[in-house]
């Protein structure tokens, strides 16, 4: 009985799947899927190499500081960094006094209540505060940015495939919409207020090119020239750190753990062989 029932159920599912396959195949041949601009013109992130690549990689603190400079002078006007605290900047090599000064002079103030009146007010951030958000809420953010909400950047490089390279590619990838694209897909002209960028999933991005000119940010003495490419690379490195601040301790702990496990496993193997030495199996 079980096998007869199973046979019938199997016949039903398998049969209908094969029928669906045939109908789908006919449809696929008679009406092939329409190509879309996103499919044909979207590009994977460019290849870019960093000091923190690979199992032994470390952050380059000077680069993170430059990236932080780009973030604070350019990105922070619209983008929040809500999971990162000022105190975390110690990882970048700033000392306590410097962090205090950075927090105190931060352009955006931390919302708080007035200790005397209880009214909503703002105060200067302190190191234990998270980076304050540029907009009070999503509605304010959308209203100020042509209905597009600038996403939080704390986790951006983990929230996209090949995130570091993605941020770098996006920042350096703005261009004119290719003529070839308009020829093939005349309907998908980049709408007014959006900007063409082949590294963005649907090709048209609300954010205007943020890094436009060499020297937009002034780097300190002895640092590389602040070209657009360099600034993009540095801020992508900074955002890799904000997303994965514990990367260095993770990798160094990993090496120690692996070393230990290799020795322990070798011993376990020898012990296993030793116990079974007299027993054929």
């Amino acid at each position, binding site marked *: 009985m079980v096998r007869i029932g199973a046979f019938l159920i199997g016949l039903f599912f398998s049969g209908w799947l094969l029928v669906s396959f045939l109908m789908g195949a006919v449809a696929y041949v008679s009406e092939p899927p329409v190509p879309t601009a996103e499919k044909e013109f979207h590009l994977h992130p460019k290849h870019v190499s960093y000091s923190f690549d690979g199992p032994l990689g470390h952050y380059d603190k000077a680069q993170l500081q430059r990236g932080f400079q780009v973030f604070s002078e350019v990105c922070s006007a619209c983008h929040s960094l809500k999971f990162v605290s000022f105190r975390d900047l110690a990882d970048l090599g700033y000392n306590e006094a410097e962090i205090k000064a950075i927090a105190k002079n931060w352009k955006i103030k931390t919302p708080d209540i007035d200790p005397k009146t209880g009214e909503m007010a703002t105060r200067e951030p302190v190191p*234990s505060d998270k980076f304050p958000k540029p907009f009070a809420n999503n509605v304010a953010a959308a209203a100020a940015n042509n209905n597009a909400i600038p996403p939080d950047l704390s986790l951006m490089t983990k929230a996209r495939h090949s995130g570091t390279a993605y941020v770098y590619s996006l920042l350096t990838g703005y261009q004119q919409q290719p003529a070839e694209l308009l020829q093939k897909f005349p309907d998908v002209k980049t709408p007014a207020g959006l900007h063409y960028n082949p590294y963005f999933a649907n090709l048209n991005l609300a954010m205007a090119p943020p890094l436009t000119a060499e020297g937009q940010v002034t780097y300190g003495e002895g640092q590389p020239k602040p070209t657009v490419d360099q600034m993009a690379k540095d801020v992508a490195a900074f955002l890799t750190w904000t997303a994965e601040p514990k990367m260095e301790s993770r990798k160094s702990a990993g090496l120690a753990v692996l070393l230990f496990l290799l020795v*322990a496993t070798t011993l376990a193997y*020898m*012990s296993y062989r*030793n*116990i079974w*030495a*007299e027993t*054929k199996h």
Partner: protein
Amino acid sequence: MATLENTADQAISADGGGVRRRDFINIAAVSFAGVGGVVAVLPLVNQMNPSADVLAMASTEVDLSGIKPGQAIKTTYRSQPLFVRHLTPEEIAKADAADVASLRDPQTLDQRTIAGKKEWLVTMGVCTHLGCVPLGAGEGENKGEFGGYFCPCHGSHYDTAGRIRKGPAPKNLEVPPVTFTSDTAILVG
């Protein structure tokens, strides 16, 4: 049939040089596993220690400008009540007048305040008996028999220097580390 004999017991316990070396390998393998297990437990224990954000909140800044002599404010330091009291000259005199040697926890007011800022008494608002919050910092609260603080839980009386004078508490109210950042502001912690 010799190949079929179950020889585990021999391999493990019989004597002879080769067998002792084998014993050593088994012991080494088990020891390594044991060490690994213990080391793996450490982060599981350590995660219960205060996290970085809790430690970052470990200092408090207090603005003294609004506190008139005779007044006190309650604020928090490390999530516990902190009393900041502006002593009047009479209160200072009263504290200095006490016979230090006879106190349960002998300390002078000078030892409990910053040199030159003797009028600012900064103490934890935590009774040293069982951790209740003493009264006396708020306007109109019972200040106890010695004009300082009074803990209603079990009746400990503290004087105007926050020293224990009567009741079950064993020690004076704790004085946290205080530094003056300006004439009218202090950093606690």
